[in-house]
């Protein structure tokens, strides 16, 4: 399978696998493991979101909604209906995927900022419903979520979670890299360039857009479900507008249309607030300034800009 990927992508995937494998050597305590797990979970969402934004060129400002729904679906099935978490999680992810399929069809006819608005509206609707239906969701204060259990043994401890999330992230990256190189991926890029031109050469743009939207929503829901079971708690803020913005920012920050960019963006923007915590009141100021400076001086995102630096230059 690896042989089918381009050399650069194969190298990238191996480097990522190596990083996941060696990182525990540098993770001295539980807190660092915790940060690494959150990075991995965010990266899974971003890899999916990047397929939608970076490759298909369709923006979504509501993916945190799917993330939160994935978590709440699993939590509600497990807590209110007594399902085993391992059964609740896939059912929840499946339902969110179905929801994305149903709403995606009308919404994806919109373009650009109008699509951004529609997805944003979807996210707001989801968040308000989650905060209001307190019989099921516990309201604005959120609800506690039982841990994942396998054959009666709870999946506990940062180390176990680290390997689970690391393996899942690698699988997602591998899937995304393959998808991008497949005919479907080429169709997505064609439709990003020009939807009309893509349709002229026989690409069913509506079907392709919907498929990648559903895939990215499913990945967000899966990451959301895992996050809920990992942290043991979930609140409606997981689906907020600001969280959706944060996810899109991670994708653009790392570099659009770069799967590794999405991972790097998630890593940087998840760890940065942790590093800035000692600054206390100045945290937001520095965070905002770093975001602005990076985008001004690396407008294409971190990974594509750095990749261009290391590429052998051709003289005109």
């Amino acid at each position, binding site marked *: 399978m690896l042989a089918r990927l381009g050399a650069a992508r194969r190298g990238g995937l191996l480097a990522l696998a190596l990083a996941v494998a060696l990182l525990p050597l540098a993770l001295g305590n539980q807190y660092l493991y915790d940060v690494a797990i959150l990075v991995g979970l965010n990266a899974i969402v971003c890899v999916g979101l990047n397929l939608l934004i970076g490759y298909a060129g369709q*923006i979504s400002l509501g993916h945190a909604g799917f993330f939160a729904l994935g978590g709440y679906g699993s939590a509600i099935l497990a807590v209110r209906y007594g399902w085993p978490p391992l059964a609740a999680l896939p059912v929840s992810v499946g339902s969110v995927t179905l929801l994305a399929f149903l709403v995606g069809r*009308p919404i994806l006819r*919109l373009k650009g*900022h109008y699509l951004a608005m529609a997805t944003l509206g979807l996210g707001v609707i989801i968040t308000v419903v989650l905060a209001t239906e307190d019989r099921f969701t516990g309201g604005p204060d959120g609800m506690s979520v039982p841990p994942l259990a396998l054959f009666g043994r709870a999946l506990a401890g940062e180390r176990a979670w680290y390997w689970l999330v690391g393996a899942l992230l690698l699988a997602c990256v591998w899937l995304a890299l393959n998808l991008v190189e497949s005919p479907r991926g080429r169709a997505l890029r064609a439709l990003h360039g020009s939807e009309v031109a893509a349709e002229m050469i026989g690409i069913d743009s509506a079907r392709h857009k919907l498929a990648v939207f559903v895939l990215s929503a499913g990945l967000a829901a899966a990451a959301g479900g895992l996050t809920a079971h990992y942290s043991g708690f979930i609140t409606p803020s997981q689906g907020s*507008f600001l969280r959706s*913005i944060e996810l899109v920012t991670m994708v653009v920050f790392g570099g659009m249309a770069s799967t590794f960019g999405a991972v790097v963006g998630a890593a940087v923007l998840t760890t940065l607030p942790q590093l800035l915590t000692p600054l206390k009141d*100045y945290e937001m100021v520095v965070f*905002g300034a770093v975001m602005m400076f990076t*985008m001004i001086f690396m407008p294409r995102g971190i990974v594509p800009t750095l990749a261009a630096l290391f590429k052998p230059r051709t003289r005109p």
Partner: protein
Amino acid sequence: MSAQLLQVLFAGLTAGAIYALVALGFSIIYNSSQVINFAQGEFVMIGGMATVSFLHLGLPLPLAALAAVAATTLVALALDKLAVERARGASVVTLIIITIGASILLRGLASLVWDKNIHALPAFNGDKPIAVGGATLLPQSLWVLGVSLAVLAALWWFFNRTLYGKAMLATSHNRLAAQLAGISVRRVLLVSFGLSGALGALAGILVAPITFTAWDVGVMLGLKGFAAAILGGLGSGPGAVLGGLLLGLAEALAAGYVSSAYKDVIAFVIILAVLVLMPGGLLGRRAAERV
């Protein structure tokens, strides 16, 4: 007309006028750059908070408001000069992320310069409600509606009767052609940021006596303004006003007759329905996409 309905309409129009002012700010910057300025809500917040501060310094209200508008305009101009202009040539999405960074930075600065508490601004003409047809109207609502109308008239004059306004419209229609005709597109962008900053600040000052103000009010007001601009059709002035008023009325009616918890949901469901039926907003440009 029942008194309750009238009361709801008053509330809706007042909120709608505020949304319209914020939406106009979005549309003006969009027209000159195709960028959605996510820091627009922060202009609203700075307007309200700065007025509170200037009042504390002992300035009379009209002067404090004027100083706050000037300060916000300066912040908006600085945002364009120091960030957006420096990143020219970058894609629209990158520019949008820069404005998101700016909004976080400005919110952080606001929590440092001021604090994280909620502040009240006294109503311009007292709080004594005026009885109208069985319903009551706050004097501040009249201020909101009156100033909004005056702003609309001034904007209409600016865009239709002054060379500068026409140059800005020309840029929004065709950037390259405008540039060839000798219009400085950079200057147009700068002016549009200044104008949007001033509009946002005005909205923030007008609404502060009704809903209070704090370092983080910009998020929600910016979101509503963006929604109004999209509902009416991005880039359209009349669309922004129509979108703002409709959004305000929809929320007030939903809160008054259905459920106050679900007022935002109902408003966004309406927006989604409108967009599905009219993908360019109510008054958006209907031009076919050129290939």
